[in-house]
């Protein structure tokens, strides 16, 4: 989605949060090689940046400072409006999601070109206020997740599954933990009945937290 951004002062570092490298490989081979893609089997970034879903993004300036803390990477919170009967999104919902994505991509392009002059950067106080707080439970969930991944890679899947169940309880808001450690459909998606029941169970909570950016639809 960012294929047209070409600028030597700017780069995209895309990270696949996939315990299974082979599951991720076809995706990366299908897209442009203009940006670097890394693989994060242990979801280290979830732990470092307090991430809980994909896509999530962080804007980092030339000096290594965060100018937009972790946020939804261009997706609009339309998941609850998914229509199983289609299956898919009604045209007006899809249009709204496409508009949100386009606004986000335009903002990234503007930053890529204009750097500090971009209107989308937060000052340090604004940025700090937008950093999500990590709890002891979340930190423990990430530690257990890494332990579970190690055991799973070493032929101890049953033990790992028991640990993953604890992770899901410790950090119930993490879709990264839930989807990585849950059953997959035939197409490799963790989007079976249980997933949709969980989405429904969100109530007023968002699946994709609305991006704090001018003009962003709800």
């Amino acid at each position: 989605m960012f294929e047209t951004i070409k600028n030597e002062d700017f780069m995209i570092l895309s990270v696949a949060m996939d315990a299974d490298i082979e599951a991720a490989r076809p995706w990366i081979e299908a897209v442009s090689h203009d940006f670097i893609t890394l693989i994060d089997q242990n979801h280290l970034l979830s732990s470092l940046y307090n991430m809980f879903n994909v896509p999530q993004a962080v804007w980092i300036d030339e000096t290594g400072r965060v100018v937009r803390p972790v946020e939804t990477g261009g997706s609009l919170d339309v998941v609850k409006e998914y229509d199983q009967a289609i299956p898919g999104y009604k045209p007006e919902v899809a249009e709204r999601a496409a508009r949100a994505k386009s606004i986000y991509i335009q903002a990234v392009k503007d930053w890529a070109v204009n750097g500090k002059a971009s209107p989308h950067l937060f000052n340090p106080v604004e940025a700090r206020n937008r950093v999500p707080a990590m709890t002891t439970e979340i930190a423990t969930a990430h530690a257990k997740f890494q332990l579970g991944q190690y055991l799973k890679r070493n032929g101890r899947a049953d033990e790992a599954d028991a640990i993953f169940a604890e992770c899901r309880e410790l950090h119930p808001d993490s879709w990264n933990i839930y989807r990585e450690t849950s059953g997959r459909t035939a197409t490799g998606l963790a989007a079976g009945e249980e997933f949709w029941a969980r989405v429904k169970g969100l109530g007023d909570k968002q699946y994709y937290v609305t991006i704090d950016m001018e003009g962003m639809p709800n």
Partner: protein
Amino acid sequence: MVTVLTETSADEVAGSPGESHSNDELWLSASDTAAITGWSMKPEGFCKDDMCVPTPLGEADKFVKDDAINVSAFWELMGRPVVRSEAADVWLLGEGANLRNDALVSLEAPDFTLPDFDDNLHSLSDFRGKRVLLITWASW
């Protein structure tokens, strides 16, 4: 032997040198502790760089015995997650929420090193001097 994991390392070492222990404790030799965690015993306590955690008064032998260090007890004392497999043969020494929050609020982007699909390692800090859009995705 025990396997000791940190967020960035995996080491197989001799556990509990010279001591019988319960499955709830991870005792390592001073040299293994230093090699794996960077922490070591000093007169001030359990230390790394300019940080030191004093050994609780009157409880020294719960934390240190001869050359061995109860790493799990120090980890808990510091409020960091320490988790293990059922058989206590694999341990993970995690990073605490406070440390994470301090790092995130500093707005210094936490550095990391991860492989690409050809197994070449890249660090975020390799790209200093460029604006970086760090963005995640997944196949699932």
